[in-house]
């Protein structure tokens, strides 16, 4: 039987705020355990939460950017459950009135465009972290408690592990464009749980789903979904039933393992949080926040293809990051061929960035300087090969290309007299190669070019070298 896969993703995103959701504690990652806490986020007796307005603004911004219906009325609820890393034993979250409902995330897969529908985007506080030590005891680190989390829930609208991967990439890209989160999976600022079920093709009713947790990379999301789809297919094919359960991804053995055999019957006893007054948002507020939304990546992608005539691949890379896209556009606007700009960015620029492990906005090379460099090649002032060295120096020091060229004396020699002089002396001191050439070994000419370039320290215009050498040899 042929099956089709139904996937829904729940993504938790830590918002880029300076302070926590309901108190003034810092949100910085990596501090010593329990050093970023206060009576409020510790849930001590008598404390009260106070809303972080920035967290609301960032969630509204996300909702507006993904086309959600954003609510004028923002209310919080208590989700009651016991867990040692949850100091109040309830989590302040949003239940029946999430800030954002509906909306979609655009993806592109095999050249096809698709929009993955969203159920909701709501705001909640994060819980702490249990630290288990080898001796058997457990500690609680509450630095993370109260961090503002946005939960983005997709509809079961994703039809393959590849689509799930594309969705996550697109979502992350969008969130980073919006500047609402740094989406760093290693630091836990982006976390994903996946729901997956399969059903015979053509059947409308959904199959029994399993939930996969513990996914720490997009690649693992894809791998775990591929595994789980196969596992479910095999089970159904063998006449087994799928049980609704939570499974963990074992990245070492590349498989999902059952975490709880039966879904615990949770009764969260939601009710409106009485310690927080609802926030009423007006259209003026929405207009203001909407005005802060940048051109989103998929729109920019299409524009780059239309405006700069980039290939789909190039446009994809250029829009993968907002700063990169900005850099590309700024450079291209300075009268250089966008394709050449894209090539430089995809080549030396990204290579240096990856080696140096710096962010795009920290790069010392400014867009006018890259544009100048490309112009210097176009004008023949330097060769493409020298340009690579010049760029490497620009990347380290932030100097203008003209400065690097002047300081290192790298200007291309296009003066025929000087080149002829170099050819003359090279041929003189390499008579054996000349003899080889004369005796019919034509490849010796290529070798000679190499020697001439070397003798000129790479500065000789290669085109001229070729021409003049050819002339010289034919006269021999």
């Amino acid at each position, binding site marked *: 039987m042929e099956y089709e896969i139904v996937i829904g993703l729940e993504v938790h995103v830590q918002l880029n705020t300076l302070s926590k959701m309901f108190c003034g504690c810092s949100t910085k990652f990596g501090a010593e355990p329990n050093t970023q806490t206060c009576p409020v986020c510790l849930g001590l007796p*008598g404390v009260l939460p106070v809303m972080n307005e920035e967290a609301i603004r960032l969630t509204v911004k996300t909702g507006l950017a993904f086309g959600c219906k954003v609510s004028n009325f923002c209310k919080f609820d208590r989700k009651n459950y016991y867990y040692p890393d949850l100091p109040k034993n309830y989590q302040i979250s949003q239940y029946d009135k999430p800030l954002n409902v509906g909306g979609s995330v655009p993806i592109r897969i095999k050249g096809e465009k698709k929009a993955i529908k969203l159920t909701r985007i709501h705001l909640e506080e994060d819980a702490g972290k249990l630290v288990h030590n080898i001796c058997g005891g457990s500690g609680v680190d509450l630095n993370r408690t109260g961090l503002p989390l946005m939960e983005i829930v997709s509809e079961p609208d994703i039809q393959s592990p590849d689509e799930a991967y594309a969705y996550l990439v697109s979502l992350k890209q969008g969130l980073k464009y919006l500047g609402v989160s740094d989406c760093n999976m290693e630091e836990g600022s982006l976390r994903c749980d996946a729901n997956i079920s399969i059903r015979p093709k053509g059947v409308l009713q959904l199959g029994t789903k399993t939930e996969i947790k513990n996914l720490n990379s997009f690649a693992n999301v894809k791998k775990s979904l591929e595994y789980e789809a196969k596992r479910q297919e095999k089970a159904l094919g063998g006449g087994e039933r799928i049980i609704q359960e939570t499974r963990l991804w074992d990245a070492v053995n590349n498989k999902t393992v059952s975490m709880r055999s039966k879904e615990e019957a949770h009764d969260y006893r939601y009710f409106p949080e009485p310690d927080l007054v609802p926030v009423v948002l007006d259209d003026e507020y929405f207009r203001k926040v909407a005005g802060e939304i940048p051109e989103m990546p998929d729109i920019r992608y299409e524009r780059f293809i239309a405006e700069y005539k980039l290939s789909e691949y190039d446009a994809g890379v250029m829009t993968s990051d907002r700063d990169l896209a900005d850099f590309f556009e700024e450079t291209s606007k300075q009268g250089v061929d966008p394709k050449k700009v894209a090539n430089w960015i995809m080549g030396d620029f990204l290579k240096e960035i990856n080696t140096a492990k710096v962010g795009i906005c920290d790069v010392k090379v400014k867009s006018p300087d890259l544009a100048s460099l490309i112009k210097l090649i176009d004008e023949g002032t330097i060769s493409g090969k020298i340009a690579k060295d010049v760029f490497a120096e620009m990347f380290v020091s932030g100097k203008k290309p003209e400065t690097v060229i002047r300081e290192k004396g790298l200007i291309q020699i296009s003066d025929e007299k000087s080149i002829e002089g170099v050819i003359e002396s090279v041929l003189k001191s390499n008579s054996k190669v000349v003899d080889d050439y004369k005796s019919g070994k034509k490849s010796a000419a290529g070798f000679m070019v190499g020697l001439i370039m070397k003798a000129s320290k790479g500065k000789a215009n290669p085109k001229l070298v070729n021409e003049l050498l050819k002339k010289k040899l034919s006269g021999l």
Partner: protein
Amino acid sequence: MEICDKTIHEIKGMLAKKEILPSEIMKSALSRMEKTGKFASFIKTFPEEALKYAEEQDSAPLKGILSGIPVAIKDNMCIEGKETTCASHILRGFVAPYTATVVQRLLNEGAIVIGKTNMDEFAMGSSTETSFFGNTLNPWNKDMVPGGSSGGSATSVSLGEALGSLGSDTGGSIRQPASLCGLVGLKPTYGRVSRYGLVAFASSLDQIGPFAKDVEDAAILLKAISGYDAKDSTSVNAEVPDYPEEIKKGIKGLRIGVPGEYFLEGIDDEVGVCVRKAIKDLEHCGAEVKNISLPRTEYAVATYYIIATAEASSNLARYDGVHYGLREKAGNIIDLYKKTRSAGFGDEVKRRIILGTYVLSSGYYDAYYLKAQKVRTLIKEDFSKAFGEVDVIVTPTSPTTAWKIGEKTDDPLKMYLSDIYTISANLAGIPAVSLNCGFSAGLPVGLQLQAAHFNEAVLLRTAYAFEQMNDYHKKRAFSEK
């Protein structure tokens, strides 16, 4: 008359004229405390520390409107460095690392905290009999309860151990003990006084307020603790009137409403007599008395016990033995929760947690919690409508005077009904005050006044006018002779 039997405003006058020193006031209160110890107003006192502060103030200029005044704080409000137990076993050993906004405001006005007062465990009760530390006695008759849950805060003022105190009122927990102990007890409008640092019982109902010997003292204390607090998002940024000035404006032409629903069965005969006489007195002061109706009154108790217990079940979830307070030995985390909570909570608290958990559970939420919220809205509407017709609503505070210790402890429902007249004000969020309007068999009778949101001034004005015609507030429960 001992210094500690005087009122705050009398002592303020003496301090201003340098007829008395803060340390003398403190010594008087501390000496009284020694003589009245058996009434058990306090869970913990800080005599040396308090005296030291008082002595420091002897030579310093007056700091604020409560300079040198010894005050007592209910043990559900946090003070940095002091244990806060809520009269419970489970919170024993919890030392607060911060100070409640209300306490800070008293300190800023120069008040000196002399102790944390006894109360019903987690403020759940109407008689201060559910305290883990044992019950408090009524200052007028040691066989009787002082009322609750702020029974300790009431008796401390009534006995002269403190000149003023703070209590918390979720369903009448300030007004009812004020009534049973013959004091002025005020529950301000929800949002008038910050709750930051008050250990929550039912967040949407709790409000902190003062106990005082007379209306002027209550006005001074209210002025000190009122005002917006950025740490409490339910706190309201409204102007705070100068209450001690406001009270003297008289009540000529004020419309006073008497709701028929508050004078039906269950009310003690003598209580009824005192309250009716009080209404006559107010009429003599120039107020216009009208009969009004609050038709949803009969649903208030049921509504209250659903909302209050629902919120309490959630608020009390944090007491689990993981982060502070009591921890019972257990092999795994679930057993740790179970054993700690079983050992740490008393019967009344457990009863309410279970009730609250039940009314919020899926399948029952709509039938109980949601319905209670709807009724709450209707009760609010009753009041809004009434306050379109009258300025102040007059009722008894409690259907009876103080009852015998142990009399109602086996009958929760009977105990719950003792708050029948005070609960509606919490559901509606309106201010209400109780003051002494007479005695029955040697026990004080309370008169309750209720007003529209943020209209504490009119309540205190009315109460002050009544006081001027009577001298009940001048009688003291404890005599040193």
